[in-house]
């Protein structure tokens, strides 16, 4: 129990119970490993996942380990493949809304909004200002919840449990706000082509602003809890590094690319909705390691909170549907009282509406990166090709690159920091 250099016997009666003995240097217990010696036999192939609690969903990594170090690995996924793209070709545009929020279920609203924008773009519809502002608020709320999940669960992976609970409390409150909008917490299906399912309830803006205020103070507390914590720094600094060039090679986008110093944010550089009229900063990192990804996400939550306040200040009562008969769902009062509206109702839900022939790749800044819908329409109520560009697909590809030569526990930290969502990865 005592050090090799200790020269007294602690339990002997004459031993001084308060004496402190320090040993400089000490014995070197590290083992130098040579690939030719007996350690070669110790290389072991292990299978992490697909149902491992640290793997963030049904992901699988097969790794060859030398001791604890990953020498070579490969990743597999597809365990949650639900053929969304095939379904997109066999369901009407209206029916596909519910599939979008089952992709990135941590920020379902961003998927809803991006999909609605993609179809509206093909049809030439522009929703009214209030609908756009509610959608923006939805995007920012979803971004905050997604980032809270990423940094919360990422911290659990490296041992910080209470941080995760603080974050998840605020996330539940955010889901309550989302529930007030659409009645669902996780699978929202809130947007409709050309508008929204429901208008925001009276006073929602004030609830949202109160939540922003509360979250700010909680978040400052969380920041003090973890950001300069020595153990957290040791576990995250210099781990899972992606250089700027590697990020470009592997099509990294969003917070992961920004952590490596790529100063790009589609909200600022390719403004959609009213983001060009809002004030916000785009944080960037320099090292591209797990810690920088954490810091970028932390700062993005702050910026999103600022954005939410600006959006709520600007929201005014008004219509939430675009004035376009093709996409507008007839109101129930009309459906029950007029034959034409009832026919319209049945036509809308049984056959769907035609989208003019054309193709467009519509993208927004999702919580994880560039989220895009590439829709090819041939003028029918169902698309010819419904491609979803999910950021996780491109990020997960680089995990083997990030984790080669790292310890197996650091691979888990790196995986947590790129926030792979299996639903989005497999579609």
């Amino acid at each position, binding site marked *: 129990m005592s050090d090799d250099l200790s020269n007294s016997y602690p339990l002997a009666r004459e031993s001084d119970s308060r004496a402190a003995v320090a040993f400089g240097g000490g014995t070197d217990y590290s083992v130098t490993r040579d690939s030719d010696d007996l350690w070669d036999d110790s290389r072991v192939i292990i299978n992490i996942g697909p149902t491992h609690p640290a793997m963030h969903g049904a992901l699988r990594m097969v790794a060859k380990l030398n001791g604890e170090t990953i020498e070579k690995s490969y990743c597999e996924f*597809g365990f949650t493949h639900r053929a969304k793209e095939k379904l997109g070709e066999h369901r009407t545009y209206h029916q596909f809304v519910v599939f979008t929020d089952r992709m990135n279920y941590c920020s379902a609203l961003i998927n809803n909004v991006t999909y609605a924008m993609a179809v509206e773009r093909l049809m030439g519809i522009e929703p009214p200002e209030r609908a756009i502002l509610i959608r923006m608020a939805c995007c920012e709320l979803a971004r905050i919840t997604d980032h809270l999940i990423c940094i919360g669960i990422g911290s659990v992976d490296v041992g910080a449990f209470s941080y995760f609970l603080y974050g998840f409390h605020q996330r539940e409150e955010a889901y309550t706000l989302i529930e007030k909008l659409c009645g669902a917490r996780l699978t929202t299906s809130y947007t409709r082509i050309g508008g929204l399912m429901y208008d925001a309830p009276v006073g929602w803006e004030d609830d949202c602003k109160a939540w922003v205020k509360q979250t700010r103070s909680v978040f400052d507390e969380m920041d003090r809890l973890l950001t300069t914590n020595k153990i957290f720094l040791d576990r995250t600094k210099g781990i899972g590094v992606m250089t700027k060039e590697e990020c470009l090679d592997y099509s990294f986008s969003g917070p992961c690319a920004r952590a490596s110093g790529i100063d790009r944010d589609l909200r600022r550089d390719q403004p959609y909705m009213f983001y060009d009229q809002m004030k916000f900063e785009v944080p960037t990192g320099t090292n591209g390691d797990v810690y920088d990804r954490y810091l970028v996400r932390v700062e993005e939550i702050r910026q999103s909170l600022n954005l939410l306040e600006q959006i709520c200040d600007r929201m005014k009562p008004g219509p939430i549907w675009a004035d376009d008969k093709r996409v507008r769902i007839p109101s129930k009062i009309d459906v029950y009282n007029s034959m034409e509206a009832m026919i319209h109702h049945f036509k809308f839900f049984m056959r769907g509406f035609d989208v003019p022939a054309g193709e467009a790749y519509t993208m927004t800044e999702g919580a994880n990166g560039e989220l895009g819908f590439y829709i090819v329409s041939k003028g029918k109520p169902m698309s010819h090709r419904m*491609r979803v560009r999910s950021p996780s697909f491109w990020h997960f590809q680089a995990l083997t690159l990030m984790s080669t030569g790292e310890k197996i526990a650091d691979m888990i930290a790196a995986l947590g920091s790129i926030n792979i969502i299996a639903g989005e990865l497999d579609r």
Partner: protein
Amino acid sequence: MNIFTSLRTNRGDWAEKFGPFWTKSIEKLKAKFGTSIEEVRMPGAYPTDVPIVFVNKAQIVEVLSFLKTDTDCGYNFLADYTATDEEAQPRFELVFNLYNRDQGPRIRVKVKVAEGEESPTCISVWPGCDWAEREIYDMYGIKFTGHPNLRRILMDYRWEGYPLRKDYPLDGYQVFPDSEAPDPERLK
């Protein structure tokens, strides 16, 4: 109304914003590659958001690396790489959605591939094409010459058929009792 130029909040201002940039880069591309550029569809004349450049299969790697590195093009970010089943001759189209991260314009490059034909792999231009090409192979059965590890990615390795082909049925099952064991060959 041209729907791709009038929707401001839905980023419909691209044609007026990037029109000259697109024209310049496509002219340069045509001058360099000549007949390998089979067809160009511009947003005003065809219902598309960005120009579509059809490139001959044989020259695709050169065209992509030119688009990536040339100063007048600079499409240095591969936003998306996928395919479509056009139910025509040739049957498939490979689709590259490219983005110039520094100046903002986007462009779309397409390659026509007939059924049973192979297309060259683009891993040398973007290493990230690896999985995208595996996904295209998995979903459409298009093979890529020179791909180091062309195997199914989303579906099971024993799967029969290519799900995103238009003639693939929507219902039916293929059941595999056991999962795939770790493959030591891939860890060498």
